[in-house]
């Protein structure tokens, strides 16, 4: 079952990368437009009516701050840019797959595995910055020194599986969802695919949210120390 026509099929095997670059450009354009609109506002606190760029960005910032504060407690501000970048980027990638003629870049396992690796490097780097390299690695040894070899193996497997699981979860959700949408649009051409569009939108938002929340939880586990 081939995909049929896509707008960026001219790139051949590099199509996911081209779509990902397009998503980056769209997100950068959105950020630029928001910064222009918000620049001259001063201390205005009245929200505008309707669906404006400023309202969308305020909802995003509020949501991301709430998520980071809920998971990370105090000191959450420094992690919000990374988490918000993950959420906005993955959400836009997922939603782009719903537009006819686009493949979602996150339906390509090397792409989602790359995102998982970025998350893995990020939470290890934050852990090392917060507790020192030795302090972070001591987490791997567990609470008691007697079971350290066993705990080391368990922790290495558990940590090593995290980027893979993040990548596979996002990839399998987006790929299966896209294929199901394509299949049912081939079977019944009108009306019924709307239900699958609703499912696709829901899955896209939930998967972006779950990826971001899991990254926040891993960061909170790495940075947690009783101070």
């Amino acid at each position, binding site marked *: 079952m081939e995909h049929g026509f896509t707008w960026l099929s001219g790139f051949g095997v590099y199509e996911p990368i081209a779509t990902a670059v397009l998503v980056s450009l769209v997100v950068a354009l959105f950020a630029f437009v928001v910064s222009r609109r918000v620049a001259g506002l001063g201390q205005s606190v009245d929200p505008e009516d309707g669906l404006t760029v400023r309202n969308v960005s305020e909802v995003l910032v509020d949501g991301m701050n709430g998520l980071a504060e809920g998971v990370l407690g105090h000191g959450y501000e420094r992690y919000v840019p990374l988490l918000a970048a993950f959420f906005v980027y993955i959400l836009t990638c997922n939603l782009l797959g719903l537009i006819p003629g686009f493949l979602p870049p996150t339906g390509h396992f090397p792409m989602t595995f790359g995102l998982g690796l970025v998350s893995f490097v990020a939470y290890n780097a934050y852990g090392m910055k917060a507790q020192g390299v030795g302090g972070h690695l001591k987490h791997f040894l567990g609470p008691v020194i007697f079971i350290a070899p066993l705990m080391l193996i368990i922790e290495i497997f558990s940590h090593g599986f995290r980027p893979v*699981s993040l990548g*596979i979860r996002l990839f399998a959700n987006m790929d*299966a969802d896209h294929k199901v949408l394509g299949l049912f649009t081939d079977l019944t051409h009108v009306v019924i695919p709307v239900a699958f569009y609703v499912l696709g939108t829901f899955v896209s938002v*939930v998967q972006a949210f779950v990826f971001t929340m899991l990254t926040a939880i891993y960061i909170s586990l790495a940075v947690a120390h009783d101070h």
Partner: protein
Amino acid sequence: MLVRGKFWGLLVLLLLVAGPAFAEESMGGGGSINHGLIAIAAGMGLGLAALGAALAQGRATAAAMESIGRNPNAADRVFTPLIVGLALMEALALYALVVAIILSGKIPG
């Protein structure tokens, strides 16, 4: 208990029947039982994973429904952890889907 015995008996019977049935097909030129076994493994693995995921998600959603029923004001605070839990359980079923896709790619023809 009697129902469970019947279920497993039926399953074993089905597997015993399915073996020769796949060997007789002339798909791929020759009827080897291996391709049939791979096909059964892919299908059954995915089905079992979906069964496990559905049972677990049903229990999680039932607990969430009950807690919302007891305390309707807490609906927003229950909803987010529920969605995260459902996505994590879904991911386990999706690992099985990935394995099933890999396995079904190993069947020639």
